[in-house]
């Protein structure tokens, strides 16, 4: 029942907003629908904590500790982003960058995007997972090109073609997976694509086929995670789309795509052993972390900067999942949570910062503290948090990942340390002059909603200082599931 509501509400919201999205109350309706989704998602989370995994709807939907945590996170960030988007898009409308008609498209697609991501998380069917991921891409293409500028059209085109080709590879991987499963599970009853059934027989699946399938699945979904060298679409789409979209792309979509990779990895590991998938994930992860960090130096646009930072962090998380084992998986899940919360809050402040300065170029943004202390401090604290300074939660997860890497694969630690160090120097040296210094920019026409920023950062801080035992136990259960 909860699952039906979790999936139905965003869909309903999308239809309602397609009808009324141009009215004055559309932004409030968007936030209300997101709040409703958050409430039913929380009910779902509570239910899974209390009663354990559940399998419903002719086995088509499956919820365990792993995906329910992402469902909760997705619904939460979806709601806070909707709160942020309300004044942000008003200001954009005030500045004449969007029209009411485009706002209608924006609100409707926002809900559809949420629905697609939640479907991808909740479905038990590997084929449906693919369909949902593709739907998530399609619903955001028009969001990235919302401003209809040349740059935004180019970004959206790149996003569509690269992710489209990537996801076509994932479809081929899914076909191979189905092919392997069909020989064990048979065509009857249509169980051969259900993850729970595949998981039960994963030891009997043909390793050669699964190995090949994993290559395609990793490349396919990895494109959407933003793993180097398939990351080209990511900084463009983050920089040119409206900021709320950048926040949900970075904070949520990358997580959901990684979730798809990990679900596949669990199956493949059961068949071909841990070595091949683990090493592939580690290689892609390290490459993305190092490349992402070095590209940070060359950025002039504030949203591109944090787009590359997302590539770096997704690389670290992918690497940690590649390491495997309870500690690394625990750290990876924690890092997914804190990265998602921190990065979305950074995009919130970066969005308002570029609105006050009238440009996304970092050279043009100066003295944020003088214009609005909340924006300035939000950006500063967010950057410190994302750079992994204690006492924020990012420090805890990165520390765990580093120590595990040192113990199990010592060769990888220099790469990780270089990535972290370079990223620190690059981001800090850019953010510092933006926050401090003098500026005479006029204040914003609508007061920004920065409550979400500080709520997110407070949560990240809490996770760094003290993790509630119930939450830790929950992460541990999820980490065990991944193996």
């Amino acid at each position: 029942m909860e699952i039906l509501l979790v999936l139905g509400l965003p869909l309903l919201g999308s239809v309602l907003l397609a009808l009324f999205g141009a009215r004055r109350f559309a932004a409030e309706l968007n936030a209300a629908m997101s709040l409703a989704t958050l409430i039913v998602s929380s009910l779902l989370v509570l239910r899974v904590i209390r009663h354990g995994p559940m399998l419903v709807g002719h086995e088509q939907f499956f919820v365990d500790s792993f995906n329910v945590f992402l469902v909760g996170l997705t619904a939460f960030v979806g709601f806070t982003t909707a709160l942020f988007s309300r004044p942000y898009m008003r200001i954009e409308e005030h500045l004449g960058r969007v029209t009411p008609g485009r706002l209608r498209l924006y609100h409707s697609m926002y809900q559809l995007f949420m629905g697609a991501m939640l479907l991808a998380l909740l479905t038990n069917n590997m084929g449906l997972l693919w369909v949902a991921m593709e739907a998530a891409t399609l619903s955001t293409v028009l969001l990235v090109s919302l401003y209809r500028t040349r740059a935004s059209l180019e970004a959206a085109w790149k996003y569509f073609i690269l992710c489209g080709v990537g996801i076509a590879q994932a479809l081929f991987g899914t076909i191979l997976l189905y092919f392997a499963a069909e020989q064990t599970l048979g065509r009857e009853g249509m169980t051969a694509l259900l993850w729970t059934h595949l998981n039960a027989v994963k030891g009997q699946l043909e390793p050669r086929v699964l190995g090949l399938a994993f290559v395609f699945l990793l490349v396919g979904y990895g494109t959407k995670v933003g793993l180097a060298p398939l990351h080209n679409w990511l900084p463009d789409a983050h920089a040119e789309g409206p900021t709320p979209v950048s926040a949900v792309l970075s904070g949520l979509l990358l997580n959901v795509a990684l979730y798809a990779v990990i679900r596949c990895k669990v199956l493949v590991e059961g068949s071909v052993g841990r070595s091949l998938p683990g090493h592939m994930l580690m290689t892609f992860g390290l490459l993305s972390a190092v490349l992402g960090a070095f590209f940070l130096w060359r950025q002039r646009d504030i949203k591109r900067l944090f787009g590359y930072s997302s590539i770096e962090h997704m690389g670290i998380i992918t690497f940690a999942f590649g390491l495997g084992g309870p500690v690394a998986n625990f750290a990876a899940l924690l890092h997914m949570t804190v990265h998602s919360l921190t990065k979305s809050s950074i995009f919130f402040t970066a969005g308002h910062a570029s609105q006050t300065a009238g440009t996304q170029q970092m050279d043009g943004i100066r003295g944020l503290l003088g214009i609005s202390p909340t924006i300035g401090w939000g950006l500063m604290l967010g950057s410190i948090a994302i750079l992994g300074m204690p006492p924020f939660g990012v420090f805890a997860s990165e520390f765990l990942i580093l120590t595990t890497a040192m113990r199990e694969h010592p060769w990888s630690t220099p790469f990780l340390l270089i990535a972290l160090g370079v990223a620190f120097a690059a981001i800090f040296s850019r953010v510092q002059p933006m926050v401090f210094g003098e500026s005479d920019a006029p204040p914003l026409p609508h007061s920004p909603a920065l409550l979400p920023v500080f709520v997110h950062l407070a949560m990240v801080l809490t996770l760094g200082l003290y993790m509630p035992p119930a939450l830790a136990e929950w992460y541990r259960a999820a980490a065990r599931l991944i193996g």
Partner: protein
Amino acid sequence: MPTSHLIAQVLNVLAAGLLLISFAMLSRRRTQRLITLLAWQGAILFLSTCLVAHSSGLSEIYYSAALTLMLKVIALPWILHRLIYQLGAQWDSEPLVNIPATMLVGLVLVIFAFGLAQPISMLATTITRHTLGIALAVILLAFLMMITRRKAITQVIGFLAMENGLFFAATSATYGMPMVIELGIALDLLVGVFILGIFFFQIREQFDSLDLHHLESLKED
């Protein structure tokens, strides 16, 4: 059984036709021709799916064949034709650099595809298992086409050709995916083409052309 042998032969011929069309697409300049070739690819897929349905006796494959007929032979080519007509791009052609070199790369890709598909074909039990290599080759050739072309519409045609290859791979290896998934894929494809249609107009409004070399300003400097 002689009939099943005959059907297998016909299927092989159809698969060869599919591969031939992929090569033809690599060398065609005119957008309209490419759309026609795409429709032909769809028609071959429809025929081969019908044959597979007949020989395997699985009735659900007929639905998937009907879906192919409606979507890939009729709807998508029709939408694309209308689109280029409205954009006034029906007589567009694009200069192609070095067709022989592209063809050679294509040949290498086909060999690679067969090598990759060999171990999987051995495991398959379907009547079409020998065509899996061709399906993979069609996917890779479509990919090659997307890389070598500079026009937005041509890239989309390449994308759809790739999807045709994927569909063919699914029928060759496993007699197709479950119906729900096929419907989902078809829906995504249709929505995707609609969105692209909107997109083309936005691109042309901004750039006065569908040439993608305008879309190369976002990069690291």
